[in-house]
């Protein structure tokens, strides 16, 4: 068995437990796993931003300052119920995600989809909706990194959204991202009316992508919107 990321041989530890129960498949070696930082303990209830290491002035009770701003804005208030991110977007995860979506190493989805399955247990939802790529970007990359998580998890996805081709998100500032006119359209309204939607994406940075998608879904009759991302930037 080799580590899915670094390719080093993994020697599984045999214990009584592993002999008698069906052990979970090991995908990453200990060294790689150690470099990932799980988000646990004290964090923003709305967006999973860890409070550890965050200056006091960026925290308001159980919320982070960013979320207070989103919720305090009547235009965005109540759009997103809760976002859950699993790992801190540290240098190591940056490299892993970059290899996954930019270099196109699809199989890394096999590791990330496990995190998705784990998180979904805590959510009540009807539909899994991946954040889409534009046609151009999809062709360039060969696959949609959010969609791949759902497929590899063996779950059903609902392609409820379509994306209009624009400049790359990562090249814009927060202000630019927020004030963008909507970059999504609804594919089929009947799919989503009255449903609880779980949006799936790879990274939560400012939250604006998810907010835009969420707002559009709500305008078209979705009951509630939550979200999952691998990383919290």
């Amino acid at each position: 068995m080799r580590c899915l990321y670094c390719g080093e041989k993994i020697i599984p530890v045999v214990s009584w437990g592993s002999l008698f129960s069906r052990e979970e498949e090991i995908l990453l070696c200990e060294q790689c796993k150690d470099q990932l930082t799980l988000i646990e303990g004290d964090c923003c209830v709305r967006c999973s931003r860890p409070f550890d290491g965050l200056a006091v002035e960026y925290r308001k009770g159980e919320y982070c300052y960013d979320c207070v701003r989103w919720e305090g804005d009547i235009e965005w208030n109540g759009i997103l119920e809760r976002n859950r991110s699993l790992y801190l977007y540290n240098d190591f995860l940056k490299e892993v995600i970059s290899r996954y979506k930019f270099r196109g190493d699809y199989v890394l989805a096999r590791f990330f989809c496990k995190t998705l399955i784990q998180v979904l247990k805590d959510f009540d939802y009807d539909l899994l909706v991946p954040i889409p790529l534009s046609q151009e970007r999809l062709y360039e990359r060969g696959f949609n990194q959010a969609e791949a998580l759902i497929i590899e998890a063996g779950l059903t996805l609902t392609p409820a959204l379509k994306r209009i081709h624009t400049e790359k998100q990562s090249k814009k500032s927060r202000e630019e991202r927020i004030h963008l006119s909507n970059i999504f359209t609804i594919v089929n309204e009947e799919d989503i009316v009255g449903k609880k939607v779980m949006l799936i994406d790879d990274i939560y940075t400012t939250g604006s992508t998810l907010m835009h998608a969420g707002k559009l879904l709500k305008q078209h009759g979705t009951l509630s919107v939550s979200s999952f991302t691998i990383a919290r930037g």
Partner: protein
Amino acid sequence: MILDSLRTILAGKQLLREEIPFELVDSPFISKRSGIEFDKKGRAHCNRCGNSDPELFAVFPCARCGKRDTYCRACIMMGRVSECTPQYGWIGDMPEIVAAPLKWSDSLSAGQQVASDRVVEAIVRGEELLVWAVCGAGKTELLFKGIEVALATGKRVCIATPRTDVVLELTPRLKSVFPSIKVSSLYGGADDRHQFSPLTITTIHQLLRFYQAFDVMVVDEVDAFPYSVDPMLQFAVKNARKESSSMIYLTATPSLKWQRECRKGKREFVTIPARFHRRALPVPESVWCGNWEKVINKGRLPAKLLKWIEQRLLAGTPMLVFVPNVAWITKLLPLLQTFDGRVESVHAEDPNRKEKVLKMRQGEILLLVTTTILERGVTFPGLEVAVLGAENRIFTESALVQIAGRVGRDIDSPTGNVTFFHNGKTEAMLKARKQIVAMNIEAKEKGLIDE
């Protein structure tokens, strides 16, 4: 002309569509080779990097072709090669290579001259040659004449090395001696990749983007990690050469297999047994220091090593102390730092490696404790070297020769001490010493050193 631009980018290359910054036009001169092929047993093979290890292929639902595509994970860091993504190349006429006069007025040492003549010969005849030149012989200069001859006869030249630092060091030197041509400098993140040049200096990794491009391929430090152990890099070198081309290998420390081939006359080679400054190579001394691990674990320094270091701290002599691995750095460093503030350490993962090496060069650091990471490529004037735990397996014959080769490189301080502190001599230690002594004898016989 769009076709001209495409030719510049594609000549001698194998590029993915997304690596070409232009619209592609239909042209009989543009070739497409499939990225992944399957043999009769259905096993995948990557045409870009040569990978055929089934564990290093994966399948994904491809949005381009709508099928489940096999892709190569071995070379994924250069972008994804999959079944439906061809590699683009050029099969029309190649851009012309014109003569470029060598602008260099220094002269070669007698040893360099012999090797330089052999290099020219190998290039003219399209042959393979190993240049076995001791550390500090001046390997770069002996290539100059060969490159000039190659260019004059319309041959495209490549110098490939395992390490980016070497690319960065060689580029300005070659640019200055061949001022009339474009010299491409390629490494991860370099911006020269879209130009066509008669002379390319590159990391071996970047050769994965070339296909039958070069008439002359020079591989520097052929025994160095990772080239020596990575079949992908060896494939890349082979793939980047034209079918009939010459191949020049440079090293101070050929593998045992190659040394044997040389002795048996199965490999063409030339030696430069002496340094350019005509002084003998420092011969390492061996000093037994017992169970040094136990001593250090008790929080003390082995007495003989301590004495060796103290003398040099007093004299202000810069030192490298090599240890078998990072764990020993962690144990040794605090012990040494209690003696003197000018002690630091480096290892492969050290983010401040470059800065520390620079500080050492500027004299701010007097002693660096290091792993084998500094065995090659560094020069500090007046340096002396100790190896602690020289019996460790990591210190192979070639590692020890390279380490000893750090000393006496400078023309103003051409000698110096090299000591192997050990707890039992190894074959590697003996062979390293023997190799150095043999080079000195050969150099003396050939009149290449003054003593």
